[in-house]
């Protein structure tokens, strides 16, 4: 799901890095957001709503709407659409409101 050729843009991607999503190893590029890396890997469901367990994913992708909150390296409520991917990051589905450390 990554664009390789584009009529207007050239995509300068950083180094390829691996990270973990719910224990599964995935590949992404350093410098892109976690949301982008997950999306490229085909992951569109980022969690479920608390009461009715409805699937949730990205909406605004720019940090305004809080639809994409996940647990990153143990920290809950991270807006993964603005958080940049780093090598070895552990990204996990958040259940409920998340525990503050």
């Amino acid at each position, binding site marked *: 799901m990554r*664009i390789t050729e584009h009529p*207007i843009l050239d995509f300068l991607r950083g180094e390829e890095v691996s990270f973990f999503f719910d224990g599964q190893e995935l590949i992404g590029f350093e410098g892109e957001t976690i949301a*982008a890396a997950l999306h*490229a890997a085909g992951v569109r469901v980022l969690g479920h709503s608390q009461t009715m367990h*409805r699937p949730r994913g990205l*909406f605004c992708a*720019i940090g305004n709407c809080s639809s994409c909150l996940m647990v990153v390296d143990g920290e809950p409520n991270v807006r993964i659409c*603005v958080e940049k991917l780093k090598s070895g990051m552990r990204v996990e589905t958040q259940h409920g409101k998340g525990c503050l450390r």
Partner: protein
Amino acid sequence: MKEIEILIIGGGPAGLSAATAAADLGANVLILERDDKPGGQLVKQTHKFFGSKKQYAGDRGYQIGNFLIEECEKNPKIEVWTETTALGIYEDGMVTAEGQGKHLKINPEKIIVATGASEKMIAFPNNDLPGIYGAGAVQTLMNLYGIVPGKRVLMIGAGNIGLIVSYQLMQAGVEVAGIIEASPTIGGYLVHAAKIRRAGVPILTSHTITKAYGQESVEGAMICKLDEKWQPIPGTEQDLKVDVICLAVGLSPLTELCFQADCHMKYVPELSGHVSLRNKYLETTRLGLYVAGDVSGVEEASSAMVEGRLAGVCAAYSLGYGNDVAPKLQGEALAELSELRAGPAGQKTVKGIMKLMDKGGAAC
């Protein structure tokens, strides 16, 4: 604590233009930008811009963004703090922000709020399914990260954003099933619509979405036709198999800081939401606080740049800079704004701004 002459909150086209205009007159400027790079929405725009040469017509949005950023980088009087989010504007004039995990205090003499606007939502069953994105989100995925949002898209909204993002989807190799627009006419520029139609993509006016469906993410949508009273016409339902639904149904100015700073606000539909009362020099009812760009009323990038320039000049002039040239620069910016808004496309904005000048509004 950081002392600064002019604080600009938001590093998009309005903020960057304001910074250069103010710094060129001699003021010291600090821009706060929550993203890791300035440029705002310009960085995602691959199409050529309209307007005249003064607003860089013919250049692509991201090229204009790069140019504005370079102008700021060249100017030693402009500082830019990226990954820094403004948190509040207080009664005593202090502004707080969060940057790199630290709580920051800034003491500015003048403030320009240029925080832009955010996407509106519309209500329909299952509008919370993964695969339903704001149009800006699709642009971010495609044009910043080179990632395709899905295989087949239903675009809701035929304003400029809906038309432009549909075209960008096609450029990225994604199929656009169609664009639906609830109103009876296409709201965006008709040349954008023409590009879409001649590529074989349908544009259906007087149509709306009745629901989205899918198990864990979008698998399809039901649309129907509306009558002249905007009511669904029975029997006109169509089932579209799409895996992405893109909402381009308008933007709302991001005015939380203005509310908090105690600016007098007014709901103006023509400007797309709640906006600050302000005079023609873009100063609000809180003296020393200016607004520029979409936060002052949702419009186009070309007017955002000119408003930014105007606010920057006015803020610097009020500090005593540019006594000889400021009035001329103000006049030029005001004339450019009039020119941009003179045609039929600008009438809505003109009407909206007039409402801000009513009794109870800031005097012009």
